[in-house]
């Protein structure tokens, strides 16, 4: 498998089977020939080809280096169940908590 890894923190950004290139040199990772694929900024990523990827590896959740192989991304954070940004999520929690307190329910 081909994997695209961030040079910044070794996070796995993409996995696929076909590697293409735009004219500007950006690598384009595709799952198959019919896939438009996703391009990556050349200066920001490292491309690894012919990598054995364990089943548990997911984009974002894992990092990769040639030396250490795959390892859990220390910066990974599970998204909240509502799929909203943390600021909005925390605002809702705060408002609702305040509401409960003002109504004597908490």
């Amino acid at each position: 498998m081909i994997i695209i890894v961030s040079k910044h923190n070794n996070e796995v950004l993409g996995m696929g089977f076909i590697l293409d290139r735009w004219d500007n040199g950006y690598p384009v990772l595709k799952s198959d020939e019919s896939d438009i694929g996703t391009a990556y900024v050349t200066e920001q990523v490292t491309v690894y080809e012919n990598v054995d990827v364990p089943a548990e590896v997911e984009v974002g959740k894992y990092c990769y280096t040639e030396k250490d192989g795959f390892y859990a991304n220390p910066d990974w954070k599970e998204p909240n169940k509502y799929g909203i940004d943390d600021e909005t999520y925390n605002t809702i929690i705060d408002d609702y908590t305040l509401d409960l307190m003002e109504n004597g329910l908490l």
Partner: protein
Amino acid sequence: MSVLVEGFSGGGSSKIANSVEQEFYANYEDVEPNMFVENVPAGINIGSTQNLFEYINYSANLSVCKLTAKRIAIVAYEDNRSSNDGIRCAVYDINDGSLKNVKVTNLGKTSNEPECIRTAKLTESKFVLSVRLSSIAYVYVISVASDGTATIGTPLSLSDCYRADVCAIDGSRVLFTHVNRSGNFRAGVYSVSGMTVSPGNSTNLISTGGYSYCKPRICRLTNNRFVAFMATDSSDNWGYATFDISGTSVSSVKSEKPYLFNAYQMAGLVRLDDNHVLYANYYYGGGDWEDSNAAIFQIASNGTVSLKSKLRLSNTNVVSGYEEEYPGFTELSADRITGIVYQMSPFDATLLKVNSANTQITELGTKALISDSSATTKPYLIYDGIKNNFSMLWETRSTGYVRCRHFNYANGGIQKSKTKIDGVSKSKATRTTKGKVLVLGG
């Protein structure tokens, strides 16, 4: 129903203008001296920072309308914690790399704070303004005199409107779009005559299932064709509606949902040519379009939208703008360079260039431009009309100011940006970062 309760007629403008002008100068020194960043991308130079005017700390109450290559009007709900709060129209001239305050007009008060403000240029001296109060949208014509004085016309009120937006088709017609409580995305073309907007019919274009999560991004492709992208369910699956206008009629051409991708609401859409748009998004929490992406979509003659290319942006910050606001994603020049401003502090900007075939996107630079600890949402980019020059406007939370800074982009070149503010040089520091000279103002 009268919601705009008093003063929405431009009264008291000179008094407001004077006080704003004083604040403008008085607070210039309050701009954070360290409002610069280390990692400025090659060729992006930072100019001066201006406090334009004091303004409420609310993220959805600012709209910038570019009237001419050199003149903009900023409409904002302003709350200076006194009896003078209301909607202001501040006219600025872009002058040698800075914004020169021409005039500020207080358009009047509203019964409560407007949910959102939208503007669209009708002519070089007239634009349409839409504000929404509760579920009612009010559409006004604003006339701007040569001296910058704004005059407001009689409003057209439209009920059951959420996610309201306006686009001027020409000097005498306005496209008004909204989502109603039932979640139907609708569009209508209304006639403008003098200072009034006449009511007309609107057309259902796509049923989204709910207004609360449907936040359309609308793009004008040609004189008569538009495309709108929007989330079409509560899981952020996006669909689209392509529609045509003729006279004051709107006809649906094609719509599909969910279809395009799954992505978080923070996104922008900008026209590339008659049948291509550039889209950028941030997606929080994984999924098929996670992190920040830019993508080119093609709109076929039958209205069908299809993905043509996609680039994962190197910056994973949040693409402006928040919720239903999205003007931070703006074209910059005729060189197919587009700027995206990310909303969180510090403001990051990415400059993208799309090739002539609309098949590839190149990042020209990405890094923080402004480190403003009090910055909040809604940065605007304004193309100055000079090649590779642009200004960014943004609002601040803690200080409650609209601020502006001028930038210049040159391919790897080093060019000092202007630091004049209304003719007063305020340059304070010069710093070399990664071989680039930044001339800092403020």
